[in-house]
């Protein structure tokens, strides 16, 4: 009975979304306040029904309701409750329900926090969100219903893919989607701005915190996915340039350009058309990612099952939303370069160059990801594009951005201050060169590692120099506005990330070895003593578990327990043992027993020593933190008409004036 209620809830949500999407737009066009006022209640109503549908699906999983096809396909009686909940978004239909649920979370937040926005503008923004919801709800109802029944009801379900039975998998999709879907807000703002025609910088100020938060979530989601792949897939890799990964990375790159472009447009009024275009592109790439993963147009191990009908539906939706918005852009975007001018040496230029590199990088990733398809279309034969392509071009394109990073804060808007630049160049440059030379001795002249150290020093000294400058020149209380603090954190994160990548890639040691119990291997300065394997069991698996004692210079470091699990349905999964550390990871994966009948004898093992690999995710998390901190800046908050905090002196008033 209840699953049908879920279906009903979705239909009602669709109707409300239609109301939310169409009526306020009409109202805004006609100046009809009653129609415009439909937006918020309709959004609230839609959210209630979508939440209901989502809750009903979660409940079906928790209660083992195998009469629902989707539940039967993705869980079974032995699956622990936390993975049953994660299984809700483990496959296509449920993940779409998650998508629309998160869209509603953003919409409700928008409805709540936009009370002070001009009515016409706010109703347009909410209407655009409503139209997006219409598309997704229709898609779910007509092609991807998670509530379909399976009768007669089976006694037990299939299993959730063991690769997905991991805490990382529970966390990664919701966070990633929060980011992806969050770009719809910037998109809605841009469309509302285009429709309204009032293209001053004000709406960009409103869009900024929303965009920063979405981008921060996306950063976190990508970091979580990368960490999960590292921990789960058993090969010590953290990024594969797989089409699905690229599908989340492209919006991230464009979003990165967007948050910087928004800064320019908000403060100087220039580059409005570019900011609008980026807003459209960021969300378009999110939609594109959704399409790529579900249409079967590209091969990917991560991809959901493909179905041409679904592919056509999403393609049509994509065409209407993106094509429509680009057409609107062509017609309504500002034609005259407005806002304050800037000289060649200025902060705007540096940000613009950064934007250029991010945009070209996103285009490059798109080209590489789609090239197999282009190859088929133009009959070029099967072309294979992978890490050698992306891993070569991406760092190349990011190099100018990394080199220019420290200069950004030191430059002024409109025109630059060359003496200050020279200072930065000298100090950061010398520091970087010095550290690089020292590092060369430690890393046997490995170029990548030296480059990693040099970049880290270059970037972090640049950040430090600016922080010190602010400390010296600005009185207490105004030194580090949230926006600036966020910037400094994020830029530091870039340095940490780059160092992590270059150092771990160049200095990692991997070895496949055959070890009998009692034997030791020496890898990366650590001694791995294999102490044999034995049987063990879990809630829905049984495993062969190895014991490895790791020492360094005879001092105990860790005891590691890699497993090779066999799940109920026979799927085998390697659970590698990872000893995490700030400066290095040790990683052991079990291979095969040398004699299949004697698991307590010798085994093949893969041992890894991975220095600085946590810095990759640490850097990413710093960037995420920077995004959140920046969004919290007081300037972005709406002026409360009645109570102004005039208790403090003029300083405060100036800041809440925004």
């Amino acid at each position: 009975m209840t699953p049908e209620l879920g279906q009903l809830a979705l239909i009602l949500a669709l109707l409300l979304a239609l109301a939310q999407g169409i009526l306020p737009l009409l109202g805004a066009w006609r100046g009809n306040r009653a129609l415009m006022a439909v937006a918020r209640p309709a959004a609230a109503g839609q959210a209630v029904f979508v939440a209901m549908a989502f809750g009903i699906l979660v409940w079906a999983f928790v209660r083992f309701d195998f009469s629902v096809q989707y539940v039967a396909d993705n869980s079974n009686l032995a699956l622990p409750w936390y993975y049953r909940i994660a299984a809700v978004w483990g496959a296509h239909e449920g993940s779409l329900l998650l998508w629309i649920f998160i869209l509603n979370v953003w919409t409700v937040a928008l409805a709540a926090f936009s009370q002070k926005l001009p009515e016409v503008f706010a109703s347009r923004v909410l209407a655009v969100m409503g139209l997006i919801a219409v598309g997704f709800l229709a898609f779910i109802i007509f092609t991807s219903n998670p509530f379909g029944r399976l009768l007669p009801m089976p006694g037990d379900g299939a299993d959730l893919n063991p690769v997905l039975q991991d805490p990382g998998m529970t966390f990664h999709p919701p966070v990633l989607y929060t980011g992806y879907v969050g770009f719809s807000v910037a998109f809605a703002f841009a469309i509302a701005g285009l429709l309204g025609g009032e293209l001053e910088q004000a709406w960009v100020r409103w869009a900024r915190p929303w965009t920063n938060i979405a981008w921060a979530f996306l950063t976190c989601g990508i970091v979580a996915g990368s960490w999960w792949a590292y921990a789960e897939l058993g090969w010590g890799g953290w990024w594969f340039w797989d089409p699905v990964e690229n599908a989340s990375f492209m919006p991230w790159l464009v979003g990165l350009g967007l948050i910087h472009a928004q800064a320019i447009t908000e403060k100087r009024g220039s580059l409005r058309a570019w900011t609008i275009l980026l807003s459209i592109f960021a969300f378009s790439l999110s939609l594109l990612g959704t399409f790529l993963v579900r249409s079967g147009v590209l091969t990917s191990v991560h991809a959901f099952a493909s179905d041409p009908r679904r592919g056509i539906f999403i393609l049509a939706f994509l065409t209407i939303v993106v094509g429509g918005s680009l057409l609107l852009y062509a017609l309504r975007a500002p034609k005259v370069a407005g806002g304050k001018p800037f000289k060649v040496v200025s902060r705007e230029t540096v940000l613009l160059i950064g934007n250029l590199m991010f945009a070209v990088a996103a285009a490059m990733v798109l080209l590489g990801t789609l090239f197999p398809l282009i190859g088929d279309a133009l009959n070029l034969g099967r072309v294979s594009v992978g890490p050698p392509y992306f891993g070569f071009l991406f760092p190349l394109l990011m190099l100018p951005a990394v080199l220019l990073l420290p200069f950004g804060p030191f430059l002024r808007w409109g025109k630059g201050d060359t003496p200050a630049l020279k200072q930065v160049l000298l100090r950061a440059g010398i520091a970087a060169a010095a550290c690089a030379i020292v590092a060369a001795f430690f890393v046997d002249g490995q170029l990548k590692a030296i480059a990693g150290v040099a970049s880290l020093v270059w970037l972090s000294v640049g950040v430090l120099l600016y922080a010190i400058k602010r400390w010296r020149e600005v009185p207490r209380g105004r030194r580090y506005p949230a926006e600036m603090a966020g910037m400094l954190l994020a830029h530091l994160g870039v340095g940490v990330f780059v160092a992590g990548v270059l150092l771990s890639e160049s200095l990692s040691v991997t070895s496949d070895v055959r070890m009998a119990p009692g034997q030791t291997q020496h890898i990366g300065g650590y001694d791995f003593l294999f102490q044999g394997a034995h049987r063990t069991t879990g809630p829905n698996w049984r495993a062969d578990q190895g014991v490895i004692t790791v020492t360094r210079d005879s001092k105990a470091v860790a005891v590691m327990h890699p497993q090779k699990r066999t799940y109920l349905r026979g799927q085998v999964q390697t659970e590698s043992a990872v000893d995490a550390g700030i400066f290095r990871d040790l990683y052991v994966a079990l291979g095969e027993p040398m004699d299949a009948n004697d698991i307590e004898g010798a085994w093949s093992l893969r041992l890894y020593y991975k220095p600085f690999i946590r810095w990759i995710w640490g850097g990413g998390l710093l960037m995420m933190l920077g995004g959140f901190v920046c969004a919290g800046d007081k300037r972005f908050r709406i002026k409360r008409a009645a109570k102004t905090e005039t208790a403090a002196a003029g300083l405060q008033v100036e800041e809440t004036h925004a």
Partner: protein
Amino acid sequence: MTRGLLRMLLVMLLVCVGVAHAQAIEPMPFANHAQELRFQHLTRQLRCPMCQNETLADSNAPIARDLRNQIFQMMQHGSSDDEIKQYLVARYSNFVLYNPPLTAGTWLLWFGPLLILLGGTGAVLVAIRKRSHRDAVATEASTANALIDSTPTDNGDDW
């Protein structure tokens, strides 16, 4: 026919995802560490023909295991990396190379980003030139937006 393809896809998904990742772990009797590094490096540049999103180094498909053994044998017999790659391309086509060679068909792939970069750089240069030659223009007056004080941040603070 689509169902047959779908079934094949499912089988491949099962083989390529559901089966032990650990089977890619095969200690081979390398002569020395340098040889092991060379093997790892080489097999990472090659695509598994069966599990097409995995490298030959990581894949646990039977064909990947066979090919790894074959590559190892060839290395023992003194074949160079290029010879090994040629051997595989002759049998499995260019697809097996993760690094698409530069041919007439792939020039778009390799030069496309460069072209986009050049185009974008041109646009940026034009934009900068346009804006650096104008005198300061008054910020466009906002019409219905009295709510937001659009004072720019030229208060000397630069933020």
